[in-house]
């Protein structure tokens, strides 16, 4: 039975009212008195040597406050990388400097060369055009394999090559994997491209820097998923501002999908320039600018081999992946193709031997970093595509082959170093077969064929590791930060509650879902609880929102802080009720002496805490506010099974998604409405990757898909209604809520389902096409069908 409040209720989102009435407060809505505007002059070439930058004429232009170049940032830190990967030979990755403004060289189209601060944006742009640049274009490297060849132009002259690292995982397994593949009854090999994507949150990035001479304090308003992380990185590594003199605020943020995790040059610049100019400095990205300055996603080229024995049991997996880093290491880039990808290569299957090799490569392109799913979609795509291809080669049912190899006992330690705590892959597959009406497929296929179309069915599974994650573990893996989270529960005298959380909502509905948990624990109305997030000056600490971690990690901190509140409140109640603390129960907003009708209301306890006239002052302090930090002991492991049905027009190659169904296991669910919405959005992004989206560079490093005119965003008529189900629930065993995280599942599970379905459709038309690289545009599908 659905509840109407608390955990499990589909509470309507309270944040919606401001968003729906135009009262949201996004960063670009912030204007500070006297602010100046910055325009970044960006490189038109992918690779070039800066011979000179002459700003003298530009500086004389109307409205110009000051022009900055790389020279102004000498002695200032570069943008740091937050994760160090160690290679197969025990050596640290190659880690180039990443200056705020280019120094000496430009390394990708969009690399900022100079920044003009002026009274208006138009004046800043006018002046930027008057800057005289002498940049000698150098040969660019775009293709990863070419970039690794002897004699290839180097993106960074001070590195030995364009290879960031050559990572092997688990290196000790390599020989055994090679042997198993050599001796296998059958090996299915697939070479594929995981296409480069641009995250494209609808709100472009914005930064507003402000500085107070009165107290030497800097404030940055920014479109960020993790304001504390920005405070730490920018303060400690770039600008040398101590945390207590630096406030970072992320107000309403219009979507992130990973690309607003990272610390960007423009944020550091606006903070720096506000102090230098003694004026607030604002930057708002245009969409065109976003395409060449937001970190991109994916961009892997992979060869995967799946070995099977004579009974079709998976015996080994070997992969070789080239992962594009772009021109610099974005904040968490090195972790994506390694620890967020290699550790997922077991998927849902009992494969005893796995070896993953990843070569991360520098190229003259925009840096690549985490985008919705980050590494896990890449892993799932390879695995679920190769399993599908194996089923086709072996002439067995793809679902049966999967079921045969499912992990069935938990906890399960994979050969790629993670331990799944819970899951039930049979249950989600059963549920999928039901909700997707697989039984009705053949009839639907016949109907399609009658209208001259080919119909295909694609099914796959996924597992993800999220709720990222244990600090001691990620520390061993090279993370330069802890990945716990924090929450403060501040109970006010009248019983209302402010919960300060380190997670940041940029569409996920924290303002609604988090209070549901606290309300449930205290038995009070959700409306009495308000979430405070996104402001480093109001919140003790936080690591932000990404990797489906908000509820699993920060929510757990909130639970722990609320438990502390309950403990203290019970003490107060026991005093007020003159009963033993052990006998006090919390229920329906009251503290009751067990087995009696004696009770005291929540509000009376909270009032007593702040007006301690009748209060156990000898035992406890007045006030009611608690903080907890939570560091989980493991990742969480959501899983599921997805199904896509497509119709294909053989005359044009055009694919339409006719049906899409998802059966997910997210463990416990706090707000099913929000969870379903997260899955819907993820599925659309996965469909986007599979059919539409592609970030393309030409061979000189010019970005060709740089606007919505060429980068195909999914629109309402590209997708159907989805059937989503999350009734299979195996709760996480190691966090107090039993939640697993749902933000990325859709984007992880859907691309292989779509591609599997298209291949199935083509096969049904009698063409033996076994693979087409994403996006499966009409042109590509048609061309594949002509061979």
């Amino acid at each position, binding site marked *: 039975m659905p509840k109407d409040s608390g955990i499990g209720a589909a509470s309507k989102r309270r944040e919606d009212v401001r968003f729906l009435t135009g009262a949201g407060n996004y960063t670009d809505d912030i204007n500070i008195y006297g602010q100046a505007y910055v325009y970044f002059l960006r490189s038109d070439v992918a690779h070039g040597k800066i011979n000179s930058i002459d700003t003298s004429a530009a500086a004389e232009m109307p409205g110009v406050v000051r022009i900055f170049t790389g020279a102004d940032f000498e002695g200032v830190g570069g943008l740091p990388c937050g994760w160090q990967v160690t290679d197969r030979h025990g050596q640290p990755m190659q880690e180039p400097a990443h200056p705020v403004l280019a120094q000496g060289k430009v390394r990708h189209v969009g690399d900022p060369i100079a920044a003009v601060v002026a009274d208006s944006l*138009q004046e800043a*742009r*006018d002046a930027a*055009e008057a800057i005289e640049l002498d940049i000698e274009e150098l040969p660019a490297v775009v293709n990863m394999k070419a970039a690794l060849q002897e004699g290839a132009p180097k993106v960074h002259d001070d590195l030995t090559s364009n290879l960031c690292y050559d990572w092997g995982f688990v290196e000790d397994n390599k020989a055994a994997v090679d042997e198993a593949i050599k001796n296998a009854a059958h090996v299915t090999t697939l070479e594929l491209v995981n296409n480069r994507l641009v995250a494209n949150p609808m709100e472009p990035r914005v930064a507003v820097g402000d500085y107070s001479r009165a107290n030497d304090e800097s404030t940055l308003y920014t479109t960020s998923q993790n304001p504390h992380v920005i405070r730490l990185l920018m303060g400690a590594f770039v600008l040398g501002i101590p945390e207590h003199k630096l406030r970072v605020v992320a107000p309403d943020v219009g979507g992130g999908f990973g690309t607003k995790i990272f610390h960007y040059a423009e944020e550091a610049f606006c903070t720096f320039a506000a102090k230098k100019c003694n004026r607030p400095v604002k930057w708002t990205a*245009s969409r*065109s600018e976003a395409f060449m300055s937001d970190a991109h996603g994916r961009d892997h080229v992979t060869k995967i081999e799946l070995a099977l024995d004579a009974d079709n049991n998976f015996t080994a997996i070997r992969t070789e992946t080239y992962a594009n880093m772009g021109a610099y290491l974005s904040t968490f880039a090195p972790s994506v193709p390694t620890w967020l990808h290699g550790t997922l290569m077991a998927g849902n299957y009992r494969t005893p031997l796995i070896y993953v090799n990843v070569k991360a490569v520098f190229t003259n392109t925009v840096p690549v970093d985490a985008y919705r799913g980050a590494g896990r979609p890449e892993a799932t795509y390879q695995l679920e595509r190769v399993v599908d291809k194996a089923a086709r080669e072996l002439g067995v049912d793809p679902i049966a082959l999967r079921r045969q190899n499912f992990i069935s006992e938990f906890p399960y330690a994979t050969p790629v170093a993670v331990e799944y705590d819970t899951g039930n892959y049979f249950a989600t597959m059963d549920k999928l077969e039901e909700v997707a009406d697989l039984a009705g497929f053949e009839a639907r296929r016949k109907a399609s064929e009658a209208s001259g179309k080919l119909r295909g069915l694609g099914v796959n599974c996924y597992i993800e590791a999220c709720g990222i994650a244990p600090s001691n573990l990620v520390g061993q893996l090279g993370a330069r930060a802890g990945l716990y989270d924090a929450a403060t529960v501040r109970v006010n005298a009248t019983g209302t509650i402010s919960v300060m959380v380190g997670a940041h909502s940029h569409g996920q509905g924290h303002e609604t879902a988090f209070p549901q948990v606290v309300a449930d624990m205290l038995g009070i109305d959700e409306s009495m609880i308000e979430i405070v997030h996104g402001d480093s000056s109001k919140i003790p600490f936080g690591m932000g929102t990404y990797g489906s971690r908000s509820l699993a990690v920060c929510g757990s901190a909130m639970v722990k802080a609320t438990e502390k509140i309950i403990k203290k409140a019970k003490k107060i109640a026991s005093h007020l009720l003159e009963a033993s603390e052990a006998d006090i129960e919390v229920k329906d907003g009251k503290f009751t002496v067990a087995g009696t009708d004696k009770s005291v209301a929540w509000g009376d306890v909270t009032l007593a805490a702040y007006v301690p006239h009748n209060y156990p002052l000898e035992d406890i302090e007045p006030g009611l506010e608690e903080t907890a930090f939570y560091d989980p002991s493991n990742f969480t492991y959501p899983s599921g099974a997805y199904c896509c049905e497509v119709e294909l027009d053989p*005359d*044009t*190659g*055009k694919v339409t998604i006719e049906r899409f169904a998802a059966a997910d296991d997210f463990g416990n669910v706090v707000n099913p409405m929000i969870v379903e919405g997260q899955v819907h959005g993820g599925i659309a992004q996965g469909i986007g990757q599979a*059919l*539409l989206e*592609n970030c*393309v560079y030409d061979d000189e490093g010019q970005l*060709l*898909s740089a606007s*919505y*005119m*060429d*980068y*195909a*965003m999914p629109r309402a008529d590209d997708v159907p209604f989805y059937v989503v189900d999350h009734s299979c629930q195996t709760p996480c065993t190691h966090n107090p809520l039993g939640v697993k995280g749902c933000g990325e599942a859709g984007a992880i599970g859907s691309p292989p389902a779509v591609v599997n379905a298209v291949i199935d459709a083509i096969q049904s038309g009698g063409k033996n096409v076994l693979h087409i690289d994403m996006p499966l*545009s*009409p*042109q590509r599908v*048609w*061309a594949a069908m002509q061979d």
Partner: protein
Amino acid sequence: MYAFDFEQPKTIAEAVAALADDEAQPLSGGQTLIPTLKQRLAMPSKLVSLTAIPEMKGVCMNGNTLCIGGATPHAVVAAEASAYPALAALASNIGDPAVRNRGTIGGSIANNDPAACYPSAALASGATIVTNSREIAADDYFQGLFQTALEEGEIVTEVRFPVPQAANYQKFVQPASRFALVGVFVAKYADGVRVAVTGASNDGVFRWTEAEAALSANFSPSALDGLSVSADGMIGDLHGTPEYRAHLIGVMTKRAVAAAS
């Protein structure tokens, strides 16, 4: 955007006078021009808006000819060109609803984007392009990629479409921009069939004369069997090779004929 002045004349004569200034640029619906200006890809001294000129607006029939004022938005054509259903349908699928409320037929025809819809209708219909100073046959008007017979400062005040016996427009959209990757407009008149193709060629909209001959003899999809367009000179970009576009011309033409007949 660079700085520029803005004028909104009320008559064609005033507009022509305003456009006589150096670097003055006519602004119709602005759905292409304004994004271009935002990118600073043009630097006009002045924009002369053509959207407040009553004599350039509206849809009417004159005998068997549908006349559309140059400043008539697509949405109005979609709603009011019922005498020429294929044209109304084309107008109702240009861009999106908000674009259709601003974008105009005159702006589209004057710009002659090689992937725009209207040029194919005008060419396939043998339309007459009326300007402030003359009348130009569509066959003479479209002169290649973004090129027309218009002189500097000359504005499209009206487009006149002879209404065909049957017609249809089939657009295969480019997945990102939703412009035509290939669009084919087929119009059947008493004296023959005209077929115009947009989106496909490096030279902009063009007539597929072989198809016209075949369809004039036999207006059915099967008349196109065996006919194909050469990929030479077709656009090749991220979304389609020249070969793919050439292939789509055949597919879309057949579909247009099937839908029209």
